[in-house]
């Protein structure tokens, strides 16, 4: 189990792990539970430039299709290829093997402005999402 207290979060249920300039992005355990069984993942294209809150990719479950947003601005430099064949990994291991993509941040400090774990838990409990 990853140390989730070191991660940063968005209100739209993405987590971010920053190493140098590279931000690894996934969805939270709460999000994978709500999305339910994932059947298809459309990963972003490597090299694509994104802004924070841009829709980066789509996850489709037995319930519906969900947009996954880029938490910070930058360029997509890596994607978790394994997910196209085995999307269920996101359900099984949302914080580790189920990571989605990596962004090379325009400004790594932007990650600091995202929610802490405590703030995320708080936001999650008050929002109706």
């Amino acid at each position: 189990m990853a140390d989730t207290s070191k991660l940063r979060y968005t209100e739209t249920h993405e987590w971010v792990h920053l190493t140098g300039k590279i931000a690894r992005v996934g969805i939270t355990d709460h999000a994978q539970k709500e999305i339910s069984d994932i059947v298809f993942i459309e990963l972003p294209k490597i090299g694509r430039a994104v802004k924070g809150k841009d829709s980066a990719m789509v996850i489709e479950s037995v319930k519906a299709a969900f947009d996954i947003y880029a938490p910070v601005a930058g360029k997509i430099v890596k994607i978790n290829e394994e997910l196209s064949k085995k999307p269920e990994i996101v359900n099984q291991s949302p914080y580790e093997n189920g990571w989605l993509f990596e962004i090379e941040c325009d400004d790594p400090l932007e990650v600091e402005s995202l929610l802490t774990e405590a703030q995320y838990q708080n936001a999650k409990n008050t929002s109706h999402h």
Partner: protein
Amino acid sequence: MSTPLALNRITDLLMNDSKAKVLSKNETRSRTPLIFERHSRNHAEWLPALEGHEETYLKSIPQDFLRKKEANLPSVSELEVVRHFTGLSQKNFSVDVNFYPLGSCTMKYNPKCLDAIASLSSFSLIHPYQEESLAQGALKILFEMQEYLSEITGMDEFTLQPAAGAHGELCGLLIAGAYHRARGSKKTKVLIPDSAHGTNPATAALCGYEVVTVKSNAKGLVDFDDLKSKLDSGVACLMMTNPNTLGLFEEDILEIAKAVHAVDGLVYYDGANMNALLGICRPGDMGFDIVHMNLHKTFAVPHGSGGPGSGPVGVKKHLIPFLPSPRVLKQKEKFLFEKQAPQSIGKLRSFYGNFGAIIRSYAYIKALGKEGLRAVSENAIINANYLRVRLKKMYDVPYDGICMHEFVMAATRQKKKGVRALDIAKRLLDYGVHAPTVYFPLIVEEAMMVEPTETESKETLDEFVQILEKIEKEIEQDPAIVLEAPHTTPVGRMDEVLAARQPNLRFKNS
């Protein structure tokens, strides 16, 4: 009014605990064989042999289209075919035998007299290539239908071509695109509230637009401030449903339309929820520029698992030149197809739309008249509010308040006890009730969207409440019954994940 057939069974279940217990046991299910699998006995082949005529037939068909292997057709007797398909038809779940409160789908009863009228030989035997002068009656109906729908929705002109709601949306956005292009404006975005039907963003994406989501506010309505922050000259259109999918009337609609028009955008009305507004208010008066109707929801055309539906599209004056062609016109007491429409987006469907569906709706409108149509919506609203208030004790209603023709409740209290909306939906099937729409709209957790429609009696609504009360007791006392439901249907819980990942779409002889 006597109790519908299926409800007799429900009453039985409610009265008699032991019978409900029987339901709890997983009765042995036997899969109905496919017609291909019935091919075992030695029946006479019914396909005529080609003997002696190979030359004649085979020469006229291009080589590429000839099959290499013999067709795998089952050899079964006529009686076996009849029994097979009659048996399948009896497994149908339909509004004719069961209560069907499927939110946003308006599964109302469709009077049988409408089928009888559509089957009259003057309608059913008419040929689409018949000359205008020999089809004046049919053309008159199409023309008057365009007028009726314009009157009901407050629009200036209608096309009857689109074959269903999503087809209507496509038509609407193509019209919006043609309009903006004709004015030389570059528009790239379509705004859509987060409570919208999934078809709206799908249509916008298909038409090449960037979809921008507008948030809902605490009242469950479009957040006007969020909308304003997303409005700029690149916005082609705002797509809205009113009442929205929470069953709430968008109170700010006049202001919203004004703001979108101010950036030269259009406002599109998704008619899925029109059953709440007939004769009460009109999208055209709210500032909508384009609307689509679902004749198969609001205007009593059967739908679900086949249809066919019909999704006429209406527009305001400035958009008339872009409507699909041909429209039916009236000139000097004669009805004819328009011959020239240079700015039209073109033809959307073969001939003139689903004529049979249009006839049914035309007869429905004629039979009910102005007062009758208003009564439809009033009763739909009363029925929904009656259920909302009665069910509030059991279920959370996150956006509570007077609703329109439907409302969304949440199985959040039940979820804490380990039972989710999906389980309750499945258990309802055992009681002979179609489940409400679940997990939609997405902004409500464990959503169950209930739309009783105007055609249900108070007794039916009361029985629905009783059934949910009974399920509530089961959740307390014997949750396994609910978690493993359904027990009485031809099949139990399907493996939806496997079905989505590895769909098995055709029969193979193994």
